[in-house]
């Protein structure tokens, strides 16, 4: 048990911080710990959470995805056309939205793997392409998403916010089993030491391609969920989500050098970031000063995460 805590200490720290923040948020909120407050909170968190998941898959293979927000914008605009109509039509519509995200990711991956270009450059370029496509679809915000479907996915089930149930499914139903597959392990191997992964007989191209496709897929999921929360399509949402998704994974203990971290950490980081923003909103701090405080909290949190370096008695350990 102690061993387990030690090897997952990043996630444990993020979890403890999240619980503390949530408690103080619910404490200061005028309406307290009601389903209503929790649902709105969870919806906001999950949008960024899914974006952070997308970013996680790029970062864990020692890459970065600057197109996460753009994929969200594009899929959000797609969603605003296809999520209103018959039940079957909407089911296919949801598939189309997520599929569009996965295709964006696949495109990123293909250029990165076969063009041998750094992910930061590729995704910077494709981000513009995706936003451009989104603008063609929705020059101005608009469109509609079926309200019944949106309510079903963004409200609660028996008092539990649906967003939290989705989070639980993502962790228990997807991540934990995925971590035990060759692909799940391969992602880490690739990010930690590509040479070792290759020599161990791993198809590094395929794994990298899969990583960026998964990033696109989660970007699509984030765009889809965002559509359910806002019920419109808006091509202008990209930039904020991209940068926040990077901040979230870092906060959740995912190392930008690759190979370390987990989807749970990425989710926790996103939830922490959003909870801090919500806390600010009710804390009476002038809204213009909020980015300043958010930034300071982010910097402090990351510094605390690196504090165990102070205990190193062998100076070389600091560099590893």
């Amino acid at each position, binding site marked *: 048990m102690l*061993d387990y805590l030690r*090897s997952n200490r990043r996630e444990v720290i993020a979890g403890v911080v999240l619980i503390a923040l949530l408690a103080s948020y619910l404490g200061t909120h005028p309406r307290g710990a009601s389903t209503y407050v929790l649902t709105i909170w969870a919806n906001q968190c999950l949008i960024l959470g899914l974006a952070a998941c997308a970013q996680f898959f790029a970062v864990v293979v020692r890459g970065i995805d600057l197109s996460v927000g753009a994929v969200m914008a594009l899929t959000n605009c797609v969603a605003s056309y296809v999520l209103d109509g018959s039940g079957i039509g909407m089911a296919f519509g949801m598939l189309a939205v997520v599929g569009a995200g996965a295709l964006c990711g696949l495109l990123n991956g293909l250029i990165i793997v076969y063009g041998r270009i750094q992910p930061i450059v590729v995704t910077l370029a494709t981000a513009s392409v995706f936003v451009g496509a989104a603008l063609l679809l929705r020059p101005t915000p608009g469109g509609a998403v079926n309200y019944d479907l949106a309510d079903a996915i963004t409200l609660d089930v028996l008092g539990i916010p649906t967003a939290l149930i989705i989070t639980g499914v993502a962790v228990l139903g997807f991540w934990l*089993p995925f971590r*035990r*597959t*060759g*692909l799940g*392990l*391969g992602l*880490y*191997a690739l*990010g*930690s*030491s590509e*040479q*070792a*992964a*290759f*020599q*161990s*007989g*791993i*198809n590094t191209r*395929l*794994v990298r391609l*899969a990583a960026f496709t998964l990033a696109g897929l989660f970007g699509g999921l984030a765009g889809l969920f965002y559509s359910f929360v806002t019920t419109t399509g808006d091509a202008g949402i990209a930039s904020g989500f991209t940068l926040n998704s990077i901040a979230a994974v870092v906060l959740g203990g995912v190392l930008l050098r690759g*190979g*370390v971290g987990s989807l749970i950490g990425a989710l926790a980081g996103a939830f922490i970031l959003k909870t801090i923003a919500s806390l600010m909103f009710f804390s009476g701090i002038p809204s213009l000063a909020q980015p300043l405080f958010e930034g300071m909290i982010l910097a402090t949190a990351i510094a605390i995460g690196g504090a165990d370096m102070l205990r*190193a*008695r*062998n*100076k*070389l350990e600091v560099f*590893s």
Partner: protein
Amino acid sequence: MADSPSPLLEMQDISMHFGATKALDGVDFTCNAGEVHAVLGENGAGKSTLMKLIAGVLQPTYGQLRVEGRDVFLGSPKAALDHGLVCMFQELSLVPDLTVRENLLLGAPGAGLGWLRGQGLDKARAVLTRIGGTDIRLGARVEDLTLPQRQQVEIAKAIMKKPRLLILDEATSALSASVVESVFDLVREERDSGTAVLFISHRFHEIEALADRVSVFRNGQRVATFMKGDHDYGAIINMMVGQKIEELFPEKQPGAHQSDIVLDVRNFSWEDQVKDVSLTVRRGQIVGLGGLDGQGQGTFLMGLVGLLRKTQGTTAIAGEPSEITSPKSAKHRDIGLAYIPEDRKTEGLILDQSIQENLELAALGRADLDAGDPTLYAGSLEQLALKHGGLELPVSSLSGGNQQKVVLAKWLALGPRCLLLADPTRGIDVKTKTQIYTILRQLADQGTAILLLSTDYEELIQLCDETHIFFEGRIAASLSGDDLTPQNIIAATLNVSAIPQAAHA
């Protein structure tokens, strides 16, 4: 050589060109099942390229590989693994951020991108236990393991793949004698059950102990293949270098034990890894540090150059008590320590930078030296006979032995009073080893005090004037003169007072 119609692996007329360089040139090579085949050659002779071709890391420019008589194309390590060709690389193939268990699973037979079952883990655990890795937990992160432990995991990982051909490329270079012996037992067992083994080592006594057949490579060509015992060491060395080397080790100078003390360490301790170590190194002396792996000798060297926090004990340089708190203070002119670390690729060099830039690194922090001045290095580069295609090329373009020379040259530029070396000849070919021995002895004769950590007891005996053997953080024995025998060293590494004379030839 055609002792069976279709040997397990047959390489026909293999050439491997990198640009204008011919790493291998028209090589025929066969490997038979149930045989340990040692491959010898100095660095750059083409051994590593040969191994990489078999492991599927590289593909030959010309030529054909056959497995059991059938033509195969090995486009990737995966393809080679599918044919049962398993390589344990000298550059370790473990993923540092994953646990031992996950690393073992990564390369396990039948492991694709889908669900991983734990098959084979029991076998790997059993192998680890057999080769002295009882204390390696499967849940431990590889990054937290020591170098020898990582090699043990590599061996377990290779055996777990049920190889038909097992390549051991300097597989035991960081392991201590007793562990090596258990690894050899394991390899012999694999051989007896029909596995072909390709064995690369620079230690003759290991080849003596393990090989059935020996092939010698030189300049990208196979020079000779013969059964073990057909030629003696001298003849084999001559085949490898193409010229006669009279003696591997330079002669010791008598009288060094009376000169001035340069390094005087008293009661040095750190955590529970180094306990109350006292020793002196005099001008002109080469003092050896030996022992099993991880007995504190490596940590002791790190502590001397200020890499450890909160060490206890005193260090005096030429009689002056000195507080060495960091490598920067250690290399200061008043102290003049230079430390050649164990892992040249990660700690000794910046591989992507040029040779020249790497050379300048040590002198950079010294106010009294101009690091950009090429004359600072010219002398030692010449003395070391560094083979390079231009100082502006990246260090990674050099062979292992030449890389080590760059590490040496960068420190020699500072004119150190005391040189600390951690296993400087690990994984280096015989010719370069001999050069390094000669240079160390020359440096000693010129007045440098040398403290040499080594895992090769021949070095401790032949090169060192005095040798301290560590056991569990303490100096278990200090040997010099006629006491400096293999028997005494082995006895001290195992911390027993004496062993029968017949134990080791």
